[in-house]
C-alpha cells in the first residue's frame, strides 16, 4: 500500500482563554489516502477545528499539537510559513459553509478566482488566469460563465455562490479538498445540485476529500469512510456502507433518531448523552 496522503495522530487543539483552557480537539487520529472521508459530529464536536488545524488556520489564541501531522511527507507543524502558504490553496483547499460570508463582498467572483490561481502559478499572465477561471466556472455548471465572472458575490444566489466558491478552491487543482459543511447554508434542492457537482469534480480529478458535516445520512452516502466525533474525540470510525453496524452508543443513538418513511415512530427518539462519552 502506498503511503497515505494525510496522517494525523493525536491531534489536539486547545484554546487558552481567560476563563481557562478549552480543548476543542482531544487526540484525533486518522489516515487519509485517495479517498473520501466524512467527519460527522454535532456543533462543538471539534470537526471544523480538525479541518482548520490541517490547514494551519487555527484562529488565535488556539494552540495545535500532534504526535504526527503530515501531508505527503511534509510535517505541517514544523513547516515554514512559506511552505504552508504554498500548500494552502495549492495542494490543500477548503470549501466553507456559507458563500455569503466566505466570498469577499467587494471583489468580483472572477477576480477572486484569478487571485487564487495566480497565488500558485506566478508565471501565469492575466489572460491565462482569466481563461482558467472561466473554464472553472463552466466546470461548476454556471450557465453563463462570462457574466458570473463579472458579478459581485451579493449578486448571485446561495447555490451559485457556493459553486463559485468551489470553482475558486479547485482552480489550482489541489490534492486534498476539505469541505466544511458545504451545503448547510443552502436549501435542499440546491444543496443536492452543489453536491453532485462537487462529487463529479472530486471523482474527475482524483482528489482526496474530507467532508465535514452534521448530516450522518448525507455523509454516509457521499463518503467511503466516516469518523464520528463527539466532544473533541473520534468515538467511532467505520466504513460508510456499514453505518448500520455502528457500535458506539452515540452513533447508534443518532441512527435511531433518523425518521424513516416505512414506519411511523412517534415521537422520534431523542439522544440521551452519556457524560462518559466525553471522558
Amino acid at each position, binding site marked *: 500500500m502506498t503511503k497515505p496522503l494525510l496522517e494525523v495522530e493525536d491531534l489536539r487543539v486547545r484554546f487558552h482563554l481567560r476563563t481557562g483552557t478549552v480543548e476543542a480537539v482531544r487526540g484525533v487520529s486518522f489516515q487519509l489516502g485517495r479517498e473520501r472521508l466524512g467527519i460527522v459530529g454535532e456543533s462543538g464536536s471539534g470537526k471544523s477545528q480538525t479541518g482548520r488545524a490541517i490547514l494551519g488556520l487555527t484562529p488565535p489564541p488556539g494552540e495545535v499539537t500532534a504526535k504526527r501531522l503530515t501531508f505527503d511527507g511534509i510535517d505541517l507543524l514544523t513547516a515554514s510559513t512559506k511552505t504552508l*502558504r504554498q500548500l494552502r490553496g495549492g495542494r490543500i483547499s*477548503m470549501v466553507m459553509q456559507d458563500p455569503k*460570508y*466566505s466570498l469577499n*463582498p*467587494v471583489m468580483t467572483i472572477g477576480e477572486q478566482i484569478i487571485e*487564487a490561481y495566480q*497565488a500558485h502559478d506566478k508565471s501565469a499572465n492575466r489572460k491565462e488566469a482569466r481563461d482558467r477561471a472561466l473554464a472553472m466556472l463552466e466546470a461548476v455548471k454556471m450557465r453563463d460563465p462570462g457574466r458570473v465572472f463579472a458579478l459581485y458575490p*451579493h449578486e448571485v444566489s446561495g447555490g451559485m455562490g457556493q459553486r463559485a466558491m468551489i470553482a475558486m478552491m479547485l482552480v489550482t487543482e489541489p490534492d486534498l479538498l476539505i469541505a466544511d459543511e458545504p451545503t448547510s447554508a443552502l436549501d435542499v434542492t440546491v444543496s443536492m445540485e452543489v453536491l453532485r457537482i462537487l462529487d463529479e469534480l472530486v471523482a474527475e480529478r482524483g482528489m482526496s476529500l474530507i467532508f465535514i458535516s452534521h448530516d450522518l445520512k448525507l455523509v454516509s452516502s457521499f463518503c467511503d469512510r466516516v469518523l464520528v466525533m463527539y466532544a473533541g474525540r473520534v468515538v467511532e470510525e467505520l466504513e460508510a456502507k456499514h453505518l448500520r453496524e455502528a457500535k458506539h452508543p452515540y452513533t447508534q443513538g443518532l441512527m435511531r433518531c433518523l425518521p424513516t418513511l416505512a414506519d411511523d415512530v412517534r415521537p422520534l427518539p431523542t439522544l440521551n448523552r452519556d457524560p462518559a462519552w466525553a471522558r
Partner: protein
Amino acid sequence: MSRGGEHASALRSFLKRLAQFVIVLATTLLGLVAVTFFIGRVVPIDPVIAIVGDRAPPHVYERTRKELGLDKPLAEQFVIYVKKAATGDFGNSVLTTNPVMSDIARVFPATLELATLGTIIGTLIGIPLGVLAAVKRGTLIDQVVRFLGLVGYSIPIFWLGLMGLLLFYAKLGWVAGPGRIDVTYSYLYTPVTGIVLLDTLMQGQMDAFWDAVSHVALPACLLGYFSLAYISRMTRSFMLNELAQEYVIAARVKGLSEFRVIWRHALRNAAVPLITVIALSYANLLEGSVLTETVFAWPGLGQYITNSLQNADMNAVLGGTIVIGTVFVLLNLVSDLLYRLLDPRTR
C-alpha cells in the same frame, strides 16, 4: 434600441440623483439659515449698538436701525435675508466693513489648506497604524498605538501647539513660527486660489513656497495628529471586525500572503465605513480649528467666526455658518459617491 434605452435611463437616474441632491442641499441650507438667523435675532445682542456704539444719540441709533432693516417684522427680515443670500449677498461685516462673502473667500482657503493637509497626514499615518494595531492586537505595538491615540485625542491641542512652537520653532528652529508666510515673501506672489502653497507653486516662487511649507508644517502635523488619533482608533476597530470574517479565512485558505490578506481583502472592506470617519473628521477640521488657528496666528474660518461672534457681527456669523453647512452637505455627497465606488452592494 436597448442600448439607447439604457443610456436614456442612466441619464434619467443621474438627473434624478442630481435633483435630489439639489433639493437636499437647498432644504438643509434653508433650515440652517433659519435656525441661525432666529437665534441671532433673539440673543440679547443689539447689532445697532455694535455699529454705532452705546453713546450714540437716539436719532443716529434709529437711522442705523432703519438702514439695517431691523425695524421691519422678523419674518420680513428673514425673507429679505434669504433673498439676498440666494444671490450670494450676506451683507457686510461690521468688524471688517467688507462684504461677508469676500471675507470668507479670504479666510476659507487658509482653513481649507490646513484642514486638507491635516486630514491627509491623519489618514496616511492613522490607517496604517490602526491596521497594525488590529493585526498585532494585544501586543506592545497595539498598546503603543493606543497610547499615541489617547494622547492625541485628550491633550488640549493649544498646549501641544505651544509646546511644538517652543521646541521646533524657538529651540530647534526646524520650522517657521506663526503665520502663513514670512512678510518678506508675502508680496512675491498674487493670491489666486488663496491657498498659499498652490499660489506660490503655480507662480514658480519656490523660495516663497518652501517658506509657506515651513509655516504650515507644524500646525498641519498637529491637526494631522489629532485626526490620526481618531482615524487610527476607528481603523483598528473596523479591521478587527473584518479580520474575524469568513472571507479572510477563505483568502488565507487560498494561500495568499498575509500582506495581501490584510491590505487587499480586509482593509478594502474596512475602507467602506472608514470613508464616513474620514469625511467627518475632515469636516470637523474645515469648520476651523479655532484653537490651532489662534495659536499659530492662522487667519482661518474658525478665527473669523469666533471674532465675529465676540463682536456681535451677526452677518459674518450667519455667512460663516452657511459656508460650514454647505461644506458638510458637499462632503456628505462626496462620501456617498465614494461609498458607491468602494462598495458594490450600495450601487
